[in-house]
């Protein structure tokens, strides 16, 4: 009996959301009086995997098959299922990412497990019942969900769990093979196209986001957003109309029909705060709004606000960040 954590790696590094998932998994293991093993997918290095000990992981299973570098649903599902069988995992924890959701849902059927996605807190296990809290109604509510059965799968929402960090602890990295065949790679990508990310920070993973709306007036003004984002080490984002008219690429559009983000800090510049936009950002920990209209609905959802012109305010903010040193 153990807890199995699915760790996503990219370019040799463990993703930030996977450090959170590893921390979550090791705390669940503690709660259940067992240990947490990880299975790594993507391109990993042994040294980085060993560092998962700092998040409380004792052992990491790693299949170095080169075709597993990019996401392949069929192969990943089989690999993780094999790891779960070997470790007799009763709880499997993964990230609520595109990979986590794609694999988690298939795994739940294969392993006859109950599944909760979008989970924001550690589980409560008492008297045989096992309950997790998850986001619902596009960030407008939470649901406590009871998971039935012997096996459970939990997909943890990004930025909702603090990553543990016990410096110096290491995990044992063990090579693992799920005996994958060509058929398991039937849905392998023909091509992977990576997008330009401002400062190399991925929006879905970012813990700070600077976002611009129609109030920015045109793509030529985005330098103001980028400067502040760069000073803060933040990712950049935008509202839907901005990506609809191609001022910014689609993958930066947040909201109900775009990406959902839950960073620690979300700075909205010249965005009105329509409910469809809020749906993608309202679980951010701290929301800052800059808008020249004091009646803009976004101020109701904000923690801090400046009623003012973005063209005047943004350079001042960037300057102030630089002065912090």
């Amino acid at each position, binding site marked *: 009996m153990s807890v199995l954590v699915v760790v996503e790696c*990219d370019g040799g590094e463990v993703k930030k959301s996977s450090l959170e998932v590893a921390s979550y998994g090791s705390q669940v293991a503690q709660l259940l009086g067992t240990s947490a093993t990880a299975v790594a997918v993507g391109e990993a290095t042994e040294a980085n995997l060993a560092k998962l000990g700092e998040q409380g992981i004792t052992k990491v299973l790693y299949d170095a098959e080169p075709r597993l570098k990019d*996401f392949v*649903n069929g192969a990943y599902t089989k690999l993780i299922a094999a790891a779960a069988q070997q470790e007799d995992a009763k709880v499997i924890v993964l990230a*609520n990412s*595109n990979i986590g*959701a794609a694999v*988690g*849902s*298939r*795994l*739940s*059927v294969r392993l006859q*497990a*109950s*599944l909760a*996605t*979008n989970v924001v807190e550690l589980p409560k296990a008492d008297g045989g019942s096992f309950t997790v809290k998850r986001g*619902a*109604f596009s*960030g407008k*509510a*939470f*649901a*406590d*969900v*009871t998971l*039935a059965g012997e096996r459970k799968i939990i997909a943890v929402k990004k930025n909702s769990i603090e990553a543990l960090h016990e410096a110096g602890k290491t995990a044992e990295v063990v090579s693992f093979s799920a005996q994958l065949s060509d058929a398991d790679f*039937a*849905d*392998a*990508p*023909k*091509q*992977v196209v*990576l*997008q330009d*990310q401002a400062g190399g920070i991925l929006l*879905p*993973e970012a813990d*700070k986001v600077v976002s611009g709306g129609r109030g920015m007036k045109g793509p030529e003004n985005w330098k103001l957003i980028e400067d502040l984002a760069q000073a803060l080490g933040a990712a950049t984002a935008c509202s839907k109309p901005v990506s609809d008219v191609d001022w910014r690429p*689609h*993958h930066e559009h947040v909201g*109900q*029909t775009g990406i959902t983000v839950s960073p*620690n*800090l979300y700075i909205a510049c010249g965005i009105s705060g329509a409910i469809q936009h809020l*749906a993608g950002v309202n*679980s951010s920990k701290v929301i*800052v*709004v800059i808008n020249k209209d004091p009646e803009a609905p976004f101020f*109701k959802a904000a*923690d*801090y606000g*400046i009623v003012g012109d973005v063209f*005047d305010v943004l350079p*001042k*903010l960037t300057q*102030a*960040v630089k002065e*912090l040193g």
Partner: protein
Amino acid sequence: MKFLVCISNVPDTTTKITFTPDNKEFNKAGVQFVINPWDEYALTRAIELKEAQGGGTVTVLNVGEADTEPNIRKALAIGADDAIRVNAFPKDAFFVAQQIANIAKDGGYDVILMGKESIDYNGFQVHGMVGELLGIPTVAPAMKLDMSGNTATLEREIEGGKEIVEVNTPFVASCQQPMCEPRIPNMRGIMTARTKPLKVVEPTGEGARTEVSAYALPPAKQGVKLIPAESAGELIKLLRNEAKVI
């Protein structure tokens, strides 16, 4: 080619969310229900592909009680050919996935499309469960879908980019923008929708694996702290010293 498009019935995006006094259920009173916005991408793209192929059918499927029929009719008005309603309250993603898989198995569908997730439960689960129950590939979430014969080319969103994936029918894909521009019904569509077949069947399979024990609203915001524009730099100090986020 036979398309099966799964739609769910969700509270309109602008709905203020409230729950029954025991916090066990969503309070439906006075709420307008719509086709899940993500599902509209699936529906419109299926209709576009059918039109491009000059043949085939688009069937819409909803797991829901009789009160979902106005939105099923709306999907028919947008251009689906026929509809199936599985007469059951959609208890959880697994329950719904089983219904879809059972209908798909008997119906010989080539392409099963649905939205990325529903805006009420935000599960992002049904696509993979259906794929696994049927033993066919799933591509989720897909931003683009083209068909050539029995081969589909999809763009799948990944963190930091996209993948181009090719799969053969049958397959499942969950859809999101910018796949297409969702259509709205026109007058002719609304008239013909009334006469299109809507079959009602009873649920099959096992029960649900998860249960909501309570809903809750997030704690109310404390109210916004306004900083004068002239001293905008103060905000940065507050973010560091008070909010501790930078």
